């Protein structure tokens, strides 16, 4: 029997995310965003985090509003269906946080470099843009073969990645499906990985489909069982996106007092994801659950 890495979100965040950590989260860009982990980071008053991800829908804006972050390494920070992230805007404008401006492709190449274990990767993007002058992790270089200009992206190696997935075993083996964003690279590039799973399943379920395993379990530090961890973002196989929450947050976060009210109600006003779900209500959850089931046709790994 492999060692169990099951623990609560409180314990996982406490143990694996010290203040000052560089943390990749929201690696699905719009799907499977680990909002529950983000809220626990806020409840534990984590400070000086660097947030890494191409786009983490509105989670980065929430973490900035809660004062957890002093640096963002991202391509886009806002609220996907409404636009600007107001906490982010205020924090940058006041100088409270630094931004390392990436594009989706540069941050992907940076994580791929980290995952591959090389100090940089080259890309053709961002040539001629002002990102080259404001982000020191991007350097123009000459291709050793063609002689043409390229942009070198320095490897990104987060201290920890937090990934919301559909199902995991206690050992850390995990199945993720849907669009994967930069999840695979982020897991392989990070020194530590926290898996947040909708369901805990037997090892055999995970090993029944080894191609769907996100990363080798020896790279996983913690497995947290937390249903609805990604709400209000969607989780393929479980629940749809809760658009209204994004609209409500936009309104709430326009002013600091509005954000404070949202924060006291939805984050510090609940002690855990269970209480959050109680506050959300059963009806709301029922409305979001998938109603059109579409199972995959199995494959055979026999011998």
């Amino acid at each position, binding site marked *: 029997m492999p060692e169990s890495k099951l623990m609560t979100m409180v314990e996982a965040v406490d143990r694996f995310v010290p203040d000052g950590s560089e943390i990749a989260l929201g690696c*699905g*860009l*719009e*799907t499977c965003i680990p909002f529950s982990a983000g809220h626990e980071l806020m409840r534990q008053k984590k400070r000086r985090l660097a947030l890494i991800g*191409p*786009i983490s829908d509105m989670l980065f804006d929430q973490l900035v509003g809660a004062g957890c972050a002093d640096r963002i390494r*991202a*391509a*886009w*920070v*806002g609220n*996907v*269906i*409404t*636009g*600007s*992230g107001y906490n*982010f*805007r205020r924090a*940058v*404008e006041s100088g409270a946080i630094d*931004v390392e*401006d*990436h*594009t*989706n*492709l540069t941050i*992907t*190449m940076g994580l*791929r470099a980290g995952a591959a274990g090389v100090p940089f990767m080259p*890309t*053709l*993007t*961002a*040539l*001629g*843009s*002002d*990102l080259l002058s*404001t982000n020191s992790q991007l350097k123009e270089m000459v291709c050793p073969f063609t002689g*043409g*200009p*390229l942009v070198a992206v320095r490897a990104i190696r987060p201290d920890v990645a937090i990934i919301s997935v559909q199902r995991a075993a206690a050992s850390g083996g995990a199945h993720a*499906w*849907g*669009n*994967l*964003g*930069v*999840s*695979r*690279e982020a897991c392989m590039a990070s020194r530590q990985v926290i898996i947040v799973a909708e369901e805990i399943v037997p090892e055999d379920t995970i090993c029944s489909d080894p191609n769907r395993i996100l990363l080798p379990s020896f790279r996983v530090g913690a497995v947290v069982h937390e249903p609805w961890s990604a709400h209000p*973002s*969607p989780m*393929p196989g479980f629940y*749809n*996106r809760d658009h209204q929450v994004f609209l409500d947050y936009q309104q709430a976060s326009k002013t600091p007092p509005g954000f404070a009210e949202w924060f006291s109600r939805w984050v510090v006003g609940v002690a855990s994801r269970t209480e959050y779900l109680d506050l959300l209500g059963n009806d709301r959850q029922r409305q979001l659950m*998938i109603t*059109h089931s*579409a199972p995959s046709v199995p494959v055979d790994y026999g011998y």
Partner: protein
Amino acid sequence: MTAYTAAELMVTAAARKIRNGEIVFVGMRLPLLGFLLAKCTHAPRAVGVYELGIVRDNPSPRPILTMGDLPNLYQAAWLADTGDAMALLQQGAVDISFIGGAQIDRYGNLNTTVIRSSNGIRTRLPGSGGACDLACLAGRHMIIMAHEKRRFVARVDYVTSPGFGRGSGWRQQRGLPRGGPAGVITTLGCFSFDPQTREMVLDSVHPDVDLETIQAHTGWPVAVSDRLETTPAPTDEELAILRRFDPDGYWTGPRRTENA
């Protein structure tokens, strides 16, 4: 003829830029609808690539508000990594893409990063996302944005997504392998870029808009095509399809949320 909104006119104009069989990198917001409209009308063989790591060659089974909505994953043609979608782009496999911006200049350079006002106040915007990548690497890209004087400026405060830089030859000098903006669709008219000077040229004005209005909302002297036209209105069929995909008018209705 059915009444329509400015956004519906813009999405329709965008959809018409997609040719049948093309590989389309579908951005957030209005382009989502433009791609669906094209698929359902003149470009049934168009394939959509989404930055989340999605490739689709059929429309989603129900309306979506954003590309991560689960119906957009159902029976997708490929679910993979963001890096795989970006690889198609970097290889040169993407024919056309659509991006927006907060500021644009006459050469189609776009800013979605930071605005500096004359009194020294900075306004921070969300950043590039995939916009810079699309502007650098797609075969061509279309720009869709609100036409306001504060947005159509002589020089953008920050080049997030390169257009033609300072004009003719600039992209080649910077080493950009291909592409450049093919046109701009605004709330007032449609522009293309002069093949020589690379400057924005007004090709059509939207119904009920006049040249003076466009000039008044543009921070440089507008170059106008010899064959200036009126932008064709959406057909009833196009509107019916759009409203099927955006039934609550979230993106194309009067209730649309405007954001930089």
